[in-house]
């Protein structure tokens, strides 16, 4: 058993709620002091809040304990509000735990956001130094790594331009580049890969993988199960502030994904799922190691697996594709499907999905005689990882990813 890099024992964080304004004004404090003179001192206030317990406070994290060995790459997963960010903030020392203890063995680099402290008026060069210092680098270190940082970010030409003129993509690249050269022994990362174009996201993932391979310890918060699967040997699943499960990534991620399928309540209340249930989806053509990543502009086949328990006559299958902004990209329905009990695969052949690289999600449904049999927001998401063909600026790249054959001719008719 290797040495421990991060140890958490009973970490808990309590927040006070019910306070509309997060800060007080003197008037409120005075009013409070008059109406309840003994509560005035902040320490007494805290104690009374603790006594009132459940009413005024919420445990964002409760009793989290784990050990992470040196060189391990661990994924931290869970729904929004499960406490992932709070845990990362505690380990980064941004906020204090209410209870518990954490010990970190080695230099810690935390990356909760890309480009923290960048000032729009300052040039790329100035911001690299400032951001480096904010992340804990020494000036000589930044001097030494400066060329690497700039090369990694691919922003050489704009070094002396104020970053307010940068595109959001360039901004992210420069921010990540600084952070990537921090060289910490323990790296805490939060979902920074959720931004930027796919090519750059790849680069970021590769960098994190390099960090992991070089024996560093990484704690990686992500909503992207694909990234977690490829990067992390182990995962921790947080649910409503509690540690729901910890162990090898495939087991934890599978259990988490199963819990995400938003059918639980529906299936229990109605017939849903008792006759048919969606089981999974993947891209089967072109076949690749990552069946949820699309790397081609050309034809593809999407397979959706459904388990049928009772015969279905005149069923209707609907499938739709959505982007991360919940915009419907495409929808299709097929009726008159007869299915015997058993496991079936619905195969959808498409001539191509010329969409801007990024994350998309499939939604599928199965109906019979107007009744909903099952409905599923497919997990994981589909990642389209083709080369970007449109405008290089993020804000002008649009929804479609199609090339344009442009030429100029003389217009004789006018």
């Amino acid at each position, binding site marked *: 058993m290797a040495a421990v890099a991060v140890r958490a024992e009973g970490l808990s964080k309590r927040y006070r709620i019910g306070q509309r304004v997060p800060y007080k004004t003197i008037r409120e404090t005075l009013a409070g002091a008059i109406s309840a003179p003994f509560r005035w001192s902040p320490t007494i206030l805290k104690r009374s809040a603790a006594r009132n317990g459940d009413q005024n406070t919420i445990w964002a994290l409760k009793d989290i304990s784990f050990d992470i060995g040196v060189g391990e790459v661990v994924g931290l997963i869970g729904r929004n509000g499960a406490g992932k960010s709070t845990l990362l903030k505690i380990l980064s020392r941004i906020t*204090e735990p209410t209870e518990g203890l954490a010990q970190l063995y080695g230099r810690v680099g935390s990356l909760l956001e890309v480009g923290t402290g960048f000032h729009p008026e300052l040039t790329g060069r100035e911001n690299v130094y400032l951001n480096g210092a904010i992340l804990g680098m020494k000036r000589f270190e930044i001097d030494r790594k400066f060329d690497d940082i700039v090369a990694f970010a691919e922003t050489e030409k704009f070094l002396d331009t104020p970053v307010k003129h940068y595109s959001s993509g360039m901004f992210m690249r420069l921010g990540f580049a600084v952070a990537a050269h921090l060289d910490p022994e323990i790296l805490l990362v939060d979902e920074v890969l959720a931004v930027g174009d796919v090519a750059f996201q790849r680069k970021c993932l590769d960098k994190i993988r390099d960090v992991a391979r070089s024996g560093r310890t990484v704690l990686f918060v992500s909503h992207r199960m694909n990234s977690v699967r490829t990067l992390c040997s182990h995962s921790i699943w947080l649910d409503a502030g509690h540690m729901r499960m910890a162990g090898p990534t495939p087991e934890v991620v599978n259990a988490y994904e199963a819990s995400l399928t938003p059918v639980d309540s529906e299936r229990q209340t109605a017939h849903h799922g008792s006759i048919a249930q969606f089981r999974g989806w993947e891209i089967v053509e072109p076949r690749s190691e990552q069946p949820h990543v699309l790397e081609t502009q050309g034809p593809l086949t999407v397979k959706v697996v459904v388990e049928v328990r009772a015969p279905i006559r005149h069923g209707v299958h609907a499938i739709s594709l959505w982007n991360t902004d919940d915009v419907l990209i495409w929808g299709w329905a097929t009726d008159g499907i007869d299915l015997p009990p058993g496991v079936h695969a619905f195969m959808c052949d498409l001539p191509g999905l010329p969409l801007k690289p990024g994350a998309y999600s499939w939604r599928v449904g199965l109906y019979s005689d107007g009744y909903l049999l099952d409905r599923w927001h497919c997990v994981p998401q589909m990642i389209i990882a083709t080369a970007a063909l449109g405008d290089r600026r993020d804000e002008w790249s649009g929804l479609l990813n199609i090339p344009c054959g442009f030429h100029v001719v003389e217009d004789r008719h006018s």
Partner: protein
Amino acid sequence: MAVLEATREQQRYPEPAPTVVIRPTRGWAFLDVRELWAHNELIYFLAARNIKVRYKQAAIGIVWAVLQPLAMMAVFTLFFGRLANLPSAGVPYPLFAFAGLLPWQLFSRAITESTSSLIMHQRLITRVYFPRIIIPMSVTLAALVDFAISAVLLLGLMLAFGFRPGAAVVWLPVFVLLLLLTAFGVGFWLSALNVEFRDVAQAMPFLSQLWLFVTPVVYPSSLVPAQWRVLYGLNPMAGVVEGFRWALLGAGPAPGPMLLVSSAVAVGLFVSGIAWFHRRERTFVDVVG
């Protein structure tokens, strides 16, 4: 493999001491000076950023640093020196006013900007760890640039008026130190208070005006009746301003008991400011974020 608690039973090796220990802090704890020193470059970079940004965004940039104190001096000379005919301790009034404005402007800028500094740097506070006290510190240090420019201007004025500083000028560094202690101390207090009570920022312009009137900037402290002067020294800026004038222009008597009181208050503000700031620091994120 090690994510599970099970591994804890397997510790057979003596472990090195952890680099970082995170646990809830309770009660009063004093600032960790070593840790602050480890971040010395961050203080520098943040101060440099404040200065650069301030002057990059202004059309006439650094000229402001020259114009402001000169304009103040002109206004003070006209109204207080000529019209109100206030005494100026035997020194030409413009010089008298400028020597007072030099420390005063640093102080006033430092406390005004410190007050809102933590709110302004909210993103930084909620995303990265570093000793939070660096933020008000860097704001005050940034004000030193304007201070240096004003000091050069004052030197020019003294030459123009044919004034040469006497031997007392060797005491000047002491008064600069006293000025910084005061500015830091008040800045720490106000910045920490403003996180919890946003009223502080609202009251700031008023507070700084008030403070100007109880500080001998436009008038000499000799206007204050002798028996009250020690009490007057409770305002540390009174000692600082009188000290500056004495060291630079030889104006007024050598600072006595009043200066001692001012120095004690300045040190008290500085130490208590650090302690208070450090005590409230741990809640900043939860309030600001």
